[in-house]
């Protein structure tokens, strides 16, 4: 198989992690590795979280990030799912899965996509605590995480 395939979803609904991982290598016996990441809403003092995004730009930004990853590492199939709307602690927010011939490419591309998603994809989180609502500030550590790939 030459090139790579990708599938992006921005959705309110939850997703089935097992089914998504299985789909990454279904019918592709050239895939020797699948790496995946699942991001969750952390609890603590957070009652809920609401995610908004910029429809249209979000999908383009994710496509671009996936394209960059696939230029650096040999990916066969890439799946990104990002949820929007209201989420509760413990709920899944994001899924990134990558299949490749060998594990190194799958691990690296998966981490790269997550790091860039955090700093380039137009999503915003608003948390509700007992004290009210607050928009989450961007973290410098996320910028550093993305910068280290340069």
């Amino acid at each position, binding site marked *: 198989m030459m090139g790579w395939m990708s599938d992006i979803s921005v959705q309110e609904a939850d997703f089935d992690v097992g089914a998504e991982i299985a789909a990454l290598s279904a019918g592709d016996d050239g895939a020797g590795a699948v790496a995946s990441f699942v991001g969750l809403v952390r609890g603590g003092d957070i009652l809920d979280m609401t995610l908004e995004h910029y429809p249209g730009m979000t999908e383009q930004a994710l496509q671009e990030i996936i394209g960059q990853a696939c230029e650096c590492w040999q990916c066969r199939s890439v799946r990104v799912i990002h949820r929007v709307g209201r989420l509760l602690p413990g709920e899944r927010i994001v899924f990134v899965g990558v299949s490749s011939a060998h594990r190194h490419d799958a691990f690296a591309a998966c981490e790269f996509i997550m790091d860039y998603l955090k*700093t380039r*994809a*137009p999503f915003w989180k*608003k948390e509700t605590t007992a004290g009210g609502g607050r*928009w989450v500030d*961007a973290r410098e550590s996320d910028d550093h995480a993305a910068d280290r790939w340069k």
Partner: protein
Amino acid sequence: MLKVLYFDNLREAIGAGAEDVELPAGVTTVGELRAALGVRHEALLTAKNLRAAVNQKMCSMDAPVADGDEIAFFPPVTGG
């Protein structure tokens, strides 16, 4: 005419997520548009680390703006 979008705390401060705006005379960059709209929307001027996109591509404040463009202003992204 420009379509201007606001997200996150900027949308809340301005009280609208989108507006159609005539390209102000003399405005050729995103930064100049920010200053011109800031007369009506102070939040655009006071926002720390304001980010922008032209036609759904992240850009710097010196990116060019032309009639018909879709311009978005927002704080740093926090997805994932």
